[in-house]
């Protein structure tokens, strides 16, 4: 159980840090084109806020099943934000404003998604919490 807890916290920490970087890049994009910056900031916030709230909620949970349920809910948000990022950041809409940065965000989003999906399965296997959020 301790192993999976550490794994979840590591994932959420990576999400928080990379989403913060994404937020900064989004704010920079806003100054170039507010219309590309707005959805960019939204994407970063959709990954950042649930990860932050989830980390705080998880610290109070010690019973494996309850930990598993909350962890899976939280990871779903981060992973699904990654799914959206993978689809949107390589699109013309963003690359015209910030090509390299949006490619970097697409890679980060892919990490949120793939790692997140694997972790959801791992938490489910360890805690027997339902896979669905």
């Amino acid at each position: 159980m301790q192993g999976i807890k550490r794994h979840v916290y590591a994932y959420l920490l990576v999400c928080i840090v990379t989403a913060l970087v994404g937020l900064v890049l989004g704010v920079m994009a806003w100054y170039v084109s507010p219309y590309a910056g707005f959805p960019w900031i939204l994407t970063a916030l959709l990954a950042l806020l649930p990860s932050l709230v989830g980390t705080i909620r998880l610290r109070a949970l010690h019973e494996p099943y309850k930990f598993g349920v909350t962890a899976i809910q939280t990871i779903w948000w981060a992973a699904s934000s990654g799914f959206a990022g993978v689809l949107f950041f390589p699109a013309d809409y963003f690359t015209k404003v910030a090509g390299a940065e949006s490619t970097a965000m697409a890679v980060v989003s892919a990490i949120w998604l793939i790692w997140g999906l694997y972790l959801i399965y791992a938490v489910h296997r360890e805690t027997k919490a339902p896979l669905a959020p």
Partner: protein
Amino acid sequence: MGDSPLASSGESKYEWVDIYGDYTLVPVPETALRTTTAIFFVFTGVLACIAALWGGAALGTQYTLADMVWVAIIGCLIQGVIGFLTAYMGASSRLSTYACMTWPYGRFGAFLWGLALAGITCGLGWYAVETWLFGVMMHDLMPNNPIMSVGVASIWGGLMMMITAAIGIAGIAFLSYLTVPFWIILAGISFAAGVMVGGGWEKVLAVQPVRSAPWEIGVAQVVGLYIAGSTITPDVARFAKSRVGAGLAWFVQVIIIEVYFLVGAGVLTLAMGGARITEALLAIGVGLGAYLLAVLGQWTTNDNNLYSGALNWALIVPLSRRALVIIQGLIGTAIAAYVGFVAGASLDPYIAFLTILGSFVPAVSGTLIADFYVYRGLYKKTPLAEAYRLKIGDKLPEVNLIGWISTAIGGVLGTWVITVGIPSLNSFLISFILYCVLAILLDKAGVKYTIGKFEVTKYGLSPSWAVKRWLARAGKASG
């Protein structure tokens, strides 16, 4: 109003046998209850689909930005209040919508009105509309390809959706969890792009729509977009640990997220002079991947429509769910193809469908809410946690005439007869008032207004033929 539903019951042993699965006609056990966050997530997952963006796009062709915001807020407020009250009812009783309808309509009436609401509205109506919209999306992707004409794409799309729904919904439903942020961001892109295309805030605020419609019609369209969902909130809310939490989960997602979806999509179509949302998204460079995911989202939503519809038909028709999915799918596809060949990509059939739905269905909610809160809560002084509590041995009516009369009169007057005010509110209020007045007066006068009685068994509200069939199958399996 305690936080834990049925807290007084001291539930120690679950005494029901669930023959339909998913606790369709029996109360949800305590072990299956979920947190408010989980309920909010499920509600949002249901809302986050392309239909919400199509609804917003339809507003963008009829209203200025300021009017659109007001229309969206008022429509969503109506949905929010109705959904809050029905969700609270579902969490209190831990029963599905159809089971809750047994009190105001009787068991037979519940099956019939439940079927009208979910079987016909979702399984046939929404399925046909979304299949046709799928055809429109395919047409926008490749306008010159004859296989992608709206009518033809509706046929092959509808048949393929029907096949995936018949084979298995579980894997497809899984995908819908992944797409919630996708829709939120897509609406954000639509909004931002609309402001950009329109030339900035001030110019977008001054843009006039391609045609104009009275604001109350717009409210009815917004209500119609999600009124079936607002009425059947007990289907999700019955799994909630907190009654108030279930209501709030609904209210918040409708007031914040739905308004955001509607205005986001509406701004883009307004700024682009009435272009369809899909055409507009492709034009601004949202990317083929995102577009195809929107198509896939349409697909998963429609599979859910078909599947939910089949679940309702299965309550009264002794056929397998798969057979019912196929029958509904074929009928829905035929309707979609007809609309596709006749109307093409015009949004008019969609607007008409939303207007009728938003005008008539609130009458069902009015009756349900009147019975639960006013007749049983205020008049009979039954605690709300006990008002719709199913107990083995209880005798409930087969038909409750007042429910039928008030819903029919409220729906017809609100939709087709009264021409002033907001149609959705008219039909809701007429059925609500009519039910309260008739039920209380007839009860005081001692006049019987129900027909027949049936006894609740451990199989809940399941009809006897279904119990017999289930027992025979169980016997074969154990034999």
